[in-house]
């Protein structure tokens, strides 16, 4: 089974109260040097069957119509390769 990740973020021009609150709190916690923070949603979908163009197209449609409200949000869809996953700087 493959994992497809949909990241949903508020459009850049839209106010992001959550990201702002996090950003404002950082200096108090002793973290300097962060110019901006934005907070969004990450969906991990376990897709049955092959993740071909058709499957990705379906996920994109799902993101467009359901996971994101494109009036205020942008989204990206990407396949998470098993390899790529471990390449991330896991904590």
């Amino acid at each position, binding site marked *: 089974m493959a994992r497809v990740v949909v990241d949903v973020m508020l459009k*850049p021009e839209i*106010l992001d109260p959550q990201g*702002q609150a996090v950003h404002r709190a950082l200096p108090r916690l002793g973290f300097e040097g962060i110019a901006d923070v934005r907070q969004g949603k990450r969906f991990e979908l376990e897709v049955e069957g092959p993740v071909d163009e058709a499957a990705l197209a379906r996920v994109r449609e799902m993101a467009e119509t359901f996971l994101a409200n494109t009036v205020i949000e942008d989204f990206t869809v990407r396949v998470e390769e098993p390899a790529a996953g471990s390449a991330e700087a896991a904590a």
Partner: protein
Amino acid sequence: MTLDTTKHAEQTPDAELPWAELGLKEDEYARVREILGRRPTGAELAMYSVMWSEHCSYKSSKVHLKQFGEKAPESDALLVGIGEQAGVVDVGQGYAVTFKIESHNHPSYVEPYQGAATGIGGIVRDIIAMGARPVAVLDPLRLGAPDHPDTKRVLPGVVAGIGGYGNCLGLPNIGGEVVFDACYQGNPLVNALCVGVMKHEDIHLAKAAGAGNKVILYGARTGGDGIGGASLLASETFDTSKPSKRPAVQVGDPFQEKLLIECTLELFREGLVTGIQDLGAAGLSCATSELASNGSGGMRVELDTVPLRDSSLSPEEILMSESQERMCAVAEPEKVDRFLEICEKWDVIATVIGEVTDGERLEIYWHGEQIVDVPPRTVAHEGPVYQRPYARPGWLDALQADDPAALARPADGDALREQVLRVAGHPNQASKSWVTDQYDRYVLGDTVLAQPEDGGMIRIDEESGLGVALATDGNGRYAKLDPYAGAQLALAESYRNVAATGARPLAVTDCLNFGSPEDPAAMWQFAEACRGLADACRTLGTPVTGGNVSLYNQTGDLAIHPTPVVGVLGVIDDVARRTPMAFREEGQLLYLLGDTREEFGGSAWSQVVHGHLGGRPPAVDLERERLLAEILVSASRDGMVDAAHDLSDGGLIQAVTESCLRGGKGARLVVPDGLDPFVFLFSESQGRAVVAVPRSEEVRFTDMCRARDLPAARIGVVDGDEAAGAGTGDAADGAAIEVQGCFRLPLAELRAAHERTLPELFG
């Protein structure tokens, strides 16, 4: 790109501006040129176009709204009347209350959560700007067909948004409405009412008096929210072919607003505010021009000092931005430091953006260059006024002739029983707990009554028990059949709901939701509703203190039912004397107050059982409403009734159902002589209520009704305890509503029908 300064405008008199794209009519643009004696700059055009829009200028509705002032009844209670951000009412003991209702219909359809949330945010800022602490909200809602897939998107989103914002602000939600009708499918109505409390001396008005006083913008940074057409002005070529990248929907930040409330109230407490205005529609354009227009002098603003969220915004866009959670205040120069200090305490960004001048112009500068130089009144208060043509629609005769008397009625007791269940379980009459349990009704610790009570009630003084009650109502079906009567019925029901709690109705706010003013039929409905409401307010002695008009509520050519929503505010000297709706004591006597006639036009029964809308709405009798209210208030004050519930959609049986379910008690009803059981149960005659009278009070109560000439019929008794019958498995022994000679309906069955509807529809 060259900045379009006033000087530039003088030098380039023939430059083409996209006034039409910004919504101005040709003659309106000509008037702007005439006022200024030259072509407007882009920034000036931005201001005029948004301030002269229907939404901000009330250009189509003004001529009709005038009546609310002209016909206003004498009232010693009114401290601030129509025209301010919200009206203010004296409720005694040195307290004043301000309340107002507003619509956020269109945004709530596009983005239900944020649209509804920012609706709450906007109305709350109106109340803070009057100097009051907001203490409660109510949310009258109209949705499309309950089983339509889009309603499943809109209703849960709207409810989550209202809750998300209101709960986070710490304002109890104490009432509202949820009405479904296919006419609202593409155009739901999301109205929101906020009420605030202050001492008389704390009333603040929006005006900028005193040359040298500083103009302070505080709250959220300004972003590119809701500036729609103004972004056209940002490009030198006014290229209309490029789609705007600026969002039409704003995202609310209730946490920021909570800080704004506390911060503003502290500024008031320390006497640091000379004038104040919230930023809502039209943002800074509105705030600066209104503050200046209401004051004595002029104003000078350095627009480049406005803190921005998005540094790419043009001056035109900054002027039009509708970013939420911002306020604009005027303060004396020596108080500015303390002002900024308090803002810092609350983590609220505050910036001096300008000052009051002794001139007569509103001047706005961008990096030292003048981009606006206008007489502020012409922007804020002297917008266009239309006498829109209106005409009674041709279809109305046929609609009114379609009398519900022709509809098939239940043949026997069993059929009646089945229809009672259907009406009680229809989404419009069903329990709204699925919605209202998502709202905090306890926060602030002063909620005495909240949904599903007839009216919400808030204690405002812990020592004396002084309190206020509020309700909102509006039946679009009635108004469709007759908008004049419909508006009066909306007021009558709201007034009755407040009186049923034991509070004395004092004042009115209204939200007039109608179709396109360019359609003579919709315009006629609007005109009739205004006339009806103004006349009724005069008769009931309750002035309209403020409100909101929402036009263009239609999908294509299809307008919504004309929907005047009326909020009534009442006062009660001691909230301990309130009358709840629940039947709580077995053996108490049920009295039906008022007259019952065959009135089924626009009724819940005709809708649920026959899908019918036709005939005439129930007759209006305002003198009777006034008498009924007096009786309900006296009975509450003197402890003569233990429960009261007004009769509205669904008629007597619906009211009895709700009171029984609320108290977990059954009732035995006897059909009065000469009344058909069906009419007795389902008629929607107005000016009625059902009360539960302790036996010890019966004589006193009936004597009072007789002495004042209010018909009061003993119709039954509270009988049977749901808790006692529970678990026995023997329905016959449990509590029930029994209509003698017709049917017996166990409470459990009725409760299931009433309570499962919304959860089944919306999860």
